[in-house]
């Protein structure tokens, strides 16, 4: 009778206690969920970001309408060219991602389309209860891109009623 009891105890002790591991795992999970910003989808990896001496952290990505500004494809370094989205039409100057994460490329002649896209994004953000002041254009310009392209994107945003501009940069070394 006592022997039987001891065996039952042995069996219970043989189990590994997983709860601390699960605790740790959840903690890490929550950390990465909080750190992962929503704009990850719209970031184009082929854009070589400029660096800035004094810049601040992007704490809240909510309300950011991301526009990637490309440099000329033939001038892109090979590592950036490898990451370049081949689905974009030829001579794409601006790349965006819509609400479903689908990437869209706009060429020089599609300035009005870009304005319409920003307007549509703004309306959908407003529909979600976002304040006007919090809706911003997040400009991810390639460091070698001519200013004309970035200024056109800013003008499109201004035409769509978005006057707050955020320049995406990397911290200076």
């Amino acid at each position: 009778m006592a022997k039987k009891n001891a065996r039952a105890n042995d069996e219970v002790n043989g189990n590994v206690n997983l709860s601390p591991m699960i605790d740790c795992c959840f903690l890490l999970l929550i950390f990465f969920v909080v750190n992962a910003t929503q704009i990850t989808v719209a970031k184009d990896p082929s854009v070589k970001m400029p660096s800035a001496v004094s810049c601040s952290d992007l704490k809240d990505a909510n309300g950011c309408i991301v526009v990637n500004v490309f440099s000329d494809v033939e001038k892109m370094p090979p590592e950036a060219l490898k990451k370049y989205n081949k689905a974009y039409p030829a001579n794409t100057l601006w790349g965006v991602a819509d609400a479903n994460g689908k990437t869209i490329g706009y060429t020089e002649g599609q300035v009005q389309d870009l304005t319409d896209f920003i307007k549509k994004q703004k309306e959908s953000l407003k529909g979600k209860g976002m304040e006007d002041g919090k809706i911003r254009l997040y400009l991810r310009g390639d460091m070698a891109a001519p200013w004309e392209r970035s200024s056109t994107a800013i003008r499109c945003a201004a035409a769509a009623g978005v006057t707050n501009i955020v320049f995406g940069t990397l911290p200076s070394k």
Partner: protein
Amino acid sequence: MARHKKIQTEAQEDPEMNISSMIDCCFLLLIYFLVATSLVSEKKLDISIPASTQSASSQKPPVDPGRILLRADGSATWNGDMTVAEVYNPDAKPGTSEYRSQRELEQLVEQLKNYKDLASSVQAEPVVMLTGAPTAPHQRIVDIMAALAEAGIKSVGISTADPDAN
């Protein structure tokens, strides 16, 4: 007696929940977010375009907006006569003194700070007009924006006229 005991031990073991599938899910999510979170996080520089109603109003602003002219070669002037940025060299190596002097536009920051003090002395909002050549590199614009951020000026008007044209 023995039969009764057996039933009892089985009943004690049964309530344990199988959590291995939950751990699987949890790990999968963890790996996803680990990959999705980039290590080098992007930073930002904020500016806001002055509303068009300001320029349409007949009232003259108390101070003239500061003017920055950026040429296609990356050199910049402040208020038309003072050179505040040298010709841009994209090949300058990070960490060298040449790179630092290229990127940290100290003269411009100083001028902007002076201008901001002047504007705040008459309770006006400092506004800077930035005129950039269409072919000027985006990096140079970001350098100027960084100088503006350092001086604490957020309101930047963007002009599309070409400074090299005249």
